[in-house]
């Protein structure tokens, strides 16, 4: 018997076995071979897609009886005007105009801008009026394709408290001279038309002119209507705006003014017809309750974003699966096998996070794509004022929904590692995501949450649900004084900023999970 050096048995250690992707593959195999988990991932997709149907198909309440609200009106829906970009608009103002064929210039001096707003209920169902201006009450000059609602335009105007502005085609706004209008500080405004290009100028004294912007109105007809206007945004209450104009200069010969209440006095028109009077080189005109602006915020207008409401429904099965992906290991003792096979615990955690994030992302992308595809035609059949949403924005909404679900999955998974029990982990994840939103929107018809009328406060800035901002389809228009409520789909943070907040939560939870996973015995 000889005693010699014995070479110990070594397993042939191949580089692939030590690779991270090998670990990811192992975790993916664990995931896909549990039937219940795959079904739950399918339920996530199904829940999001299914809710694209009912919640797009909500009537504005005209033409169909609106049920319990008691205001069932059988009247047909008024035709919703849309602007050149296809967006629903408010186009109701008092317009004194003359036809302009070809190029021309219109110049005015605005010496006064005053207004009346409703300050309380008065007699005969009318409001009691007191003097006052809305921030975006406006008077000025406008070149508009014709007097129909929604036609292309460019305008120079003075506003209640936002100085001189140039606005065109409803959604665009540029600031000019700041300050308010008075007899001692009049504002000179000028619009120059050259083909389909219009340049706006303003001036304090009428001698030195500053160009505000030059805009192109594609396909502007040869003959347009040019003139002066007033508009009184209402923000829910009756209002009028009165402008006093002097030195009205037109570069082309024209007859007298034609007065038009654009939109008429119907449901989408002005609240009350305008009036004007002329004396000694001064023209005073008063227009009532209307605006030239996008239909946005709580004033109206919806988008295909509604089709993604099911995201909340899809989050729940995903959170359940993400937590069970971890707690299942602890419950059955599989975690010891997993950590024996992959002793570097951080890598195991990373592999699990990659798998669950991939599942969440793919489920979110598939579900959001289906929901938008289903929701677009459903929404088009309703009587709602529907905003078009560009393909680029829709791509952001789809990818963002995927990222939102992926991060929620990682967050739930990390919480599951921290608490190691399924029910408490799932509850923690759901409470952290859902309760801030629920407290923001409030419960019940009078649930006075800050999300009913306004921006939503801290909850949608600082908690994981801030990521819902990534689904916001419509911009807020600062030039429209209306509420942008959370329940209307407007969020306080920018899309990617909201997602970053959720990402920070997931990262923090993952860091704590990593720390605990390394420190504790499995």
């Amino acid at each position, binding site marked *: 018997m000889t005693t010699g050096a014995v070479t110990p048995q070594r397993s042939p250690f191949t580089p692939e076995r030590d690779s991270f992707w090998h670990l990811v593959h192992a975790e993916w195999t664990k995931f896909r071979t549990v039937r219940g988990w795959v079904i739950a991932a399918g339920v996530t997709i199904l829940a999001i897609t299914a809710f694209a149907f009912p919640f797009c198909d909500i009537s504005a309440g005209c033409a169909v009886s*609106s049920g319990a609200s008691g205001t069932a009106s059988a009247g047909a829906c008024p035709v919703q005007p849309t602007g050149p970009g296809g967006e629903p608009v408010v186009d109701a103002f008092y317009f004194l105009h003359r036809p302009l064929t070809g190029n021309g210039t219109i110049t005015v001096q605005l010496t006064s801008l005053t207004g009346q707003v409703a300050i309380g209920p008065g007699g005969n169902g009318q409001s009691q009026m007191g003097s006052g201006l809305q921030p975006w009450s406006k008077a000025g000059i406008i070149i508009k394709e014709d007097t129909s609602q929604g036609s292309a335009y460019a305008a120079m105007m003075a506003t209640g408290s936002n100085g001189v502005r140039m606005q065109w085609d409803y959604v665009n706004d540029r600031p000019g001279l700041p300050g308010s209008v008075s007899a001692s500080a009049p504002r000179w405004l000028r619009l120059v038309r050259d083909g389909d290009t219009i340049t706006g100028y303003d001036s304090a004294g009428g001698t030195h002119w500053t160009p505000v912007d030059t805009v192109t109105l594609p396909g502007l007809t040869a003959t347009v209507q040019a003139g002066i206007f007033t508009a009184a945004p209402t923000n829910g209450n009756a209002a009028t705006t009165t402008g006093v104009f002097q030195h009205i200069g037109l570069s082309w010969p024209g007859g007298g003014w034609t007065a038009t209440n654009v939109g008429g006095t119907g449901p989408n028109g002005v609240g009350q017809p305008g009036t004007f009077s002329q004396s000694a080189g001064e023209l005073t005109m008063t227009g009532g309750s209307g605006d030239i602006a996008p239909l946005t915020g709580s004033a109206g207008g*919806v988008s295909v974003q509604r089709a993604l409401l099911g995201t*909340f429904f899809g989050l729940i099965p995903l959170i359940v699966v993400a937590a*069970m992906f971890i707690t299942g290991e602890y419950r059955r003792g599989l975690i010891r096998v997993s950590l024996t096979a992959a002793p570097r615990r951080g890598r195991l955690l990373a592999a699990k996070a990659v798998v669950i994030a991939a599942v969440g992302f793919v489920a979110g992308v598939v579900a959001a794509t289906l929901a938008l595809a289903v929701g677009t035609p459903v929404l088009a059949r309703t009587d709602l004022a529907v905003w078009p949403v560009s393909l680029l924005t829709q791509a952001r909404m789809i990818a963002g929904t995927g990222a939102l679900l992926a991060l929620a999955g990682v967050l739930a998974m990390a919480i599951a590692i921290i608490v190691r029990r399924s*029910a408490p982990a799932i*509850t923690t994840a*759901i409470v952290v995501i859902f*309760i801030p939103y629920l407290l923001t929107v409030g419960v019940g018809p009078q649930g006075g*949450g800050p999300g009913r009328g306004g921006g939503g406060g801290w909850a949608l800035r600082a908690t994981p649900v801030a990521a819902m901002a990534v689904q916001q389809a419509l911009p807020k228009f600062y030039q429209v004084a209306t509420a942008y409520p959370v329940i209307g789909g407007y969020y306080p943070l920018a899309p990617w900023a909201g997602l970053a907040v959720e990402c920070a939560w997931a990262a923090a939870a993952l860091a704590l999970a990593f720390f605990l996973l390394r420190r504790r015995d499995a």
Partner: protein
Amino acid sequence: MSLAVRAFPPLHPASRALRAAAAALKAEWTKFRTVAEPFWLLAGVVALTVAIGAVAGSAARCSSASCGLDPATVSFTGIYPAQAVAAVAGVLAVGNEYSTGMIKLSLTAMPRRLTWLFAKAAVVTAPVLAASALAVAGAALTGWLILPGHGFTPAHGYPSLTTGTDLRAAVGTALYLTLIALLSLGAAAAVRNSAAAIGVVLGALYLFPITAAVVSNPAIARHLDQIGPLPAGLDAQATTGISTLPLTPWQGLGVVALWTVAALLLGALALKFRDA
């Protein structure tokens, strides 16, 4: 030599069932009180209700007579997360039996399955009700101390916080928490998996009000507020604007009770007709 066998007189079937129920109750109570988890969960219910109520009360400001805030709703804001903890307690009471395999032992010892479920529910009810009462009393006391300093004064239309309406709100809220725990217990018996059960329960609780808030059609929103367990149940804690609620406070609690009965019924059916 004869062996004297002591003969027991045969018991009446009803009496036997009663004895079985008493034995099951005793066994389940022993299980409940000898595990630390339920105690911590119920302590969590109390702590969350009081703490969140204090935060919400500190943040609430009522500057005019028509500020539209309900002092009871503000004080009981902690119910939103606390009911999730109560739901966990309910789910785990049954879910733990399934996840540990204990259920086989339990049903061997107590073959009357419905009696076992009844004993489980009864054993969960009493401590949850006690914890809920403590939580609600703590939150009400916190609100009573904080809110008058934040504008909830008689001048703004809030006479005091000890009227019969406030008592009803407090009792209703405590009953609501208990019903949610029982609903969760029934759901866990029906799906037999803690994780799936808690997902279903929290979905049923939170998705109705979120959907109702976002839906623009007021009729649909009102119906969602009537059938959802959370919005219906929270009608029970309102003390202002009761005439505008979708349901009266007790009707709201009735809706929650219907959900609870349905869940327990489903749980009983699953227990009765499926192998454990």
